[in-house]
């Protein structure tokens, strides 16, 4: 997508809701279609950009590996150890971490900090499990289960806080 056409989509996304509110029903249909197209367009663009970034990252890793092999050949046996490929634990393999990362955008700022700390702890746990030689399938399930438990714990904590406030208020009134 061209950068100029992005502004067209932004324009449509802004004017779309206004049009829905202002224009009468028969004419409105004419505006809803381009608006929907705009939304789909934006989503598709984001997705394609993400894929492109992923491919570029992969290419970068390959180039690094190639450069390292060249160094290895040039220096003979006395070559530095091969740098370990950086593995991101928050990738698609760990749906639990992904779930938590998504969940943190729906909570308050204070809770978000707690969620971030939970994510970091789960990443450390996953690394520890990997060091211990736990099968990846088991690891994935364990992380998913723990993430779910964490989310439930946070929701439960929120409910408790709400109930506490409600009870305090009720006692104050009484």
């Amino acid at each position, binding site marked *: 997508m061209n950068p100029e056409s992005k502004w067209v989509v932004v324009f449509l996304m802004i004017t779309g809701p206004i049009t829905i509110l202002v224009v009468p029903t028969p004419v409105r249909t004419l505006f809803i279609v381009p608006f929907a197209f705009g939304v789909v367009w934006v989503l598709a663009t984001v997705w394609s950009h993400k894929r492109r970034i992923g491919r570029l990252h992969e290419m970068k890793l390959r180039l690094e590996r190639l450069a390292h092999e060249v160094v290895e050949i040039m220096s003979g046996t006395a070559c530095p150890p091969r740098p370990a490929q950086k593995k991101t634990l928050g990738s698609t393999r760990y749906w639990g971490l992904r779930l938590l990362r998504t969940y943190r955008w729906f909570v308050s700022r*204070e*809770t978000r*900090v*707690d*969620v*971030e*700390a*939970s*994510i*970091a*702890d*789960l*990443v*450390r*746990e996953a*690394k520890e499990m990997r060091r211990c030689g736990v099968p990846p399938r088991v690891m994935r399930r364990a992380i998913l289960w*723990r993430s779910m*438990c*964490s*989310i*439930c*714990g*946070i*929701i*439960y*904590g*929120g409910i*408790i*806080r709400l*109930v*506490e406030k409600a*009870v*305090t208020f009720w*006692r104050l009134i009484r």
Partner: protein
Amino acid sequence: MRVYTKLMNAKLPSRVEFELLSLVITERSGRDVAKLHEKLTGKRMSYGTLYTTFRRLREQDWVSVRDDADEDGRIRFFKLTRGGQRVLDCARTDYEALSTFGLGTQPERGPA
């Protein structure tokens, strides 16, 4: 029920709070606390529950929090404050007193 009990004894921490307060007498990270809790009680506490409880303790000034970070992300360290220490001592005394409450009033059983 738990909430009601907690509100009735506003000065006393709940069981989970008491356990967590006891574990952060020296400064510990959330993960260390979770590990130690699992080791001592045999029950696993989720990080969500742990951090939410610590947040509640922090709001009551029973625990101080320090944030740090490493390559994996955020680390939160917790430490008991003076107020927290006082509450912990108070709770220990109260629970001890409660455990022996009414023991002397039991009628002695004679021979059948």
